[in-house]
């Protein structure tokens, strides 16, 4: 057998597009037939073994006897609309007018606001599975799509993972229209554009791209459309399906697209010239481009006093650095650079380490894994057995392990500090997990040398990140007040005169100096 690096790869399937057409294309060619019975037979064939579909044929006599067929999916529709505004008029009223039969039906009989005429079965299938009703008329080679949607929806609640002490408590839901309505309500301008797209061959998920015309960076917008246009996927269930495909640096642990569950955050970002992507079926809304500092920003920063929120933001940044560096730093000091420790501390730590079986580096890895396990359990477990977890976590790990001299107490403190600080910036959990391990590995192999090398690598990586062509960290080195007003501190609102210059060319947010009584 050949060594693995000489083995030839199988040729890639380059004619993937052709195959996809074979699988999906047939429905595109299927046209509506003039005969009602033919049409009903096709629909029944398409939805064979799908027992939620309802088929009904209506016959009227009188002057102009006619036959109509309606098809809808139970559970997605409002039966009241179908009964009183579609079936009843069809039975009682006679269509009149100059157009085709189906046009006449829509103008003079059916009492539904949103309608559409088509002869394409693919179109019909997409809509009937989304709660619309199909109306066939015998002798007409077209069909009408009548909007009768009525889903069970969750009500608007405060998002669990983005809670705030003050400020709006509304969060997005799974309904696209409801989410859009929450954005529209906050932005009553004609400049707000909402472009609707459909993605996912099987899920046909509706996606809305929202932006403010006068603020958005057109290049970023075009790039977004170009990348979305290239997507070919069978289903989109969440914003991340798309965000992960279209983002820059797909293999980086750091985020290059933003997400939020809060309409106020989305509107705030739109006002800075960003683009929002609302995906049907998920309360998560993606925003582009994403700057590195957004990892540390919170909507509360803008709602509370700026002294307090500036302090909290610095805390968040320190927490990120600490949670990445602390385990590595501790190992480097304890295993390589004991000279760094003052005598009393050195003796204390050495005393603790005397009777512990594992070397410090391995102990750190084990304890970090234990903490991550506890955290993961805390997220996954049903909330009513939380007590068991806290007992196991606090008593067994915290106390028993130390008393049995299996783990040194300083290590528990280090791991606890690492864990707690890691929870401060939940948006960065991925880079934290990855880089903490990298830093720990380097530091426990090379001491401070490895620590500084790994932190340097991380900083270089962060500085190289872009989001839709926009640098995540600006290296232009401008330290003017307006350039840094929302980085390490949050300037008071009357000083936020311009928008971030990397996001938009329309800078002026407010006329200067309009503060004070």
């Amino acid at each position, binding site marked *: 057998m050949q060594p693995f690096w000489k083995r030839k790869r199988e040729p890639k399937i380059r004619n993937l597009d052709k195959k996809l057409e074979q699988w999906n294309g047939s429905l595109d060619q299927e046209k509506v037939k003039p005969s009602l019975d033919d049409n009903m037979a096709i629909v029944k064939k398409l939805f064979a073994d799908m027992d939620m579909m309802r088929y009904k044929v209506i016959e009227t006599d009188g002057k102009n006897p006619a036959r109509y067929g309606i098809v809808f999916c139970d559970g997605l529709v409002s039966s009241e609309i179908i009964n009183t505004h579609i079936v009843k008029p069809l039975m009682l009223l006679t269509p009149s007018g100059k157009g085709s039969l189906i046009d006449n039906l829509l103008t003079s009989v059916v009492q539904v606001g949103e309608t559409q005429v088509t002869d394409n079965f693919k179109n019909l299938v997409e809509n009937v599975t989304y709660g619309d009703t199909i109306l066939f008329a015998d002798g007409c080679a077209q069909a009408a799509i009548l909007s009768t949607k009525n889903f069970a929806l969750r009500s608007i609640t405060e998002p669990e993972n983005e809670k705030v002490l003050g400020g709006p408590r509304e969060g997005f839901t799974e309904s696209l229209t409801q989410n859009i309505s929450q954005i529209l309500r906050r932005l009553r301008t004609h400049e707000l554009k909402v472009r609707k797209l459909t993605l996912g061959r099987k899920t046909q998920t509706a996606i809305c791209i929202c932006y403010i015309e006068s603020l958005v960076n057109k290049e970023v917008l075009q790039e977004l459309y170009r990348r979305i246009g290239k997507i070919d996927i069978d289903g989109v269930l969440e914003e991340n399906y798309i965000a992960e495909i279209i983002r820059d640096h797909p293999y980086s642990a750091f985020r290059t697209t933003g997400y939020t569950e809060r309409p106020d955050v989305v509107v705030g970002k739109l006002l800075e010239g960003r683009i929002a992507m609302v995906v049907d079926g998920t309360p998560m809304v993606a925003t582009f481009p994403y700057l590195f500092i957004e990892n540390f920003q919170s909507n509360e920063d803008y709602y509370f006093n700026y002294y307090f929120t500036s302090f909290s933001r610095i805390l968040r940044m320190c927490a990120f650095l600490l949670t990445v560096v602390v385990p590595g730093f501790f190992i480097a000091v304890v295993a390589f650079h004991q*000279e760094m420790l003052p005598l009393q501390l050195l003796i204390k730590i*050495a005393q603790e380490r005397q009777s512990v079986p594992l070397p410090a580096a391995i102990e750190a890895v084990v304890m970090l894994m234990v903490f991550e396990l506890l955290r993961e359990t805390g997220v996954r477990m049903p909330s009513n057995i939380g007590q068991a977890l806290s007992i196991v976590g606090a008593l067994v790990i915290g106390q028993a392990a130390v008393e049995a001299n299996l783990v040194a107490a300083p290590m528990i403190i280090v791991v606890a500090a690492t864990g707690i600080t890691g929870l401060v910036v939940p948006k960065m959990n991925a880079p934290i997990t990855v880089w903490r391990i990298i830093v720990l590995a380097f530091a426990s192999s090379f001491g401070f040398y490895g620590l500084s090398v790994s932190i340097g690598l991380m900083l270089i990586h962060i500085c190289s990140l872009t989001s839709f062509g926009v640098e995540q960290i600006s290296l232009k080195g401008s330290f003017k007040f307006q350039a840094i007003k929302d980085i390490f501190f949050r300037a008071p609102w009357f000083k936020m005169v311009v928008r971030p210059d990397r996001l938009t060319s329309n800078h002026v947010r407010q006329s200067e100096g309009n503060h004070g009584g």
Partner: protein
Amino acid sequence: MVGKRILACLMCLAIAFVLSGCWNYRSLDELDIVVGLAIDYDKEKKVFWVDYEIADLMGADKQSPIQSRIVRSEGKTIFDAARNAKRKEEDRLYFGSANTVVISHQVAKEIGLNPVLDWILRDAECRETVNVVISQEETAANLLETTEGYKGIISVAINQIVREDKKVTASGINRKVFELYGSIHSKKNSAVVPAMHKKMCVSRKIPELNGVGILKGDKLIGYLPPDKTQYLLYVIEKDAGGLITLSVTDMETDDIALEVFKHLVDKSISFEDDKITVKIKTKTYVGVAENLANLPMRDKEVVRKLERAAEEKMKTSIEDVVSILQQNFRTDVLGFGELIYRRNLKLWEQLEPDWDKIFPTVGVDVSSEVVIISSAYLK
């Protein structure tokens, strides 16, 4: 292909981690933390005896203060002795946290400090800031030996005593290894080293700072008692503290104590008619700490008189110390050579070869000023 390259890089990295896994790795539980050393010399066997005070991590429980134990080893040189200690000890000695080295008076007198300082400065692990202390006991190890009932680590205590003394009692002078090495190898001045002995305190013998040892070159030639050391300190060190006690009435003990808040000293030289004179000007800001004589401190005249008395005491005491150093020890711990070198290089170049002979003849002119800035007046 990219995939292979990445794979190759990953493999290299994995090997790098495995191969370098022990680069300088020192597990804390395999170290004996040496806190202090005592150095003695056995004349008959011609070997150095080195005692190490080691933090005893296994003993006692976590609540009580950490105890220490003493390990002794011998060797032809000091480092040889340090290496030989591994023959008795399970773990290797770690000198990175040692803060005190006690040298026996016998080593200091006969062999000199050089072998000790040389090793400490060359060794990568030892710090250059280790405090040097001369033991006035029979051996250096005596100073580290614990008497019964003593809690804690003696080297730490010695280090603390020596370091904080200048500000509090001003009875000793703290010298670190690098400072000593600097003055020993310079012709311009000589060094002093704090000296300690053991004294009965209630029921046990504990180390006590007892003035300084005077060095000539790297060898010990004598001691200066604590009360004399104080005034040496006022000449050669900035920011010395301590108490100046006076007697203004005819009581048997001193009845006024002045606490030194701030002490400034300014030295200058004049060279006239082949006669070198060093002017020592001191300015001391003091507060009245004790007033057993019941002087009325609200009276400005009384305060002025007290200041004059204190100035007189300062002046005579400094002159006393200077004359002891010039006439008895004949070694320039006052730093006059350094002063001439800085102020008048040409003169120093002439004097340098015979400085040892010239030093005792240097004239000294002391003028002192004492300012009472606070009398802590009690009604």
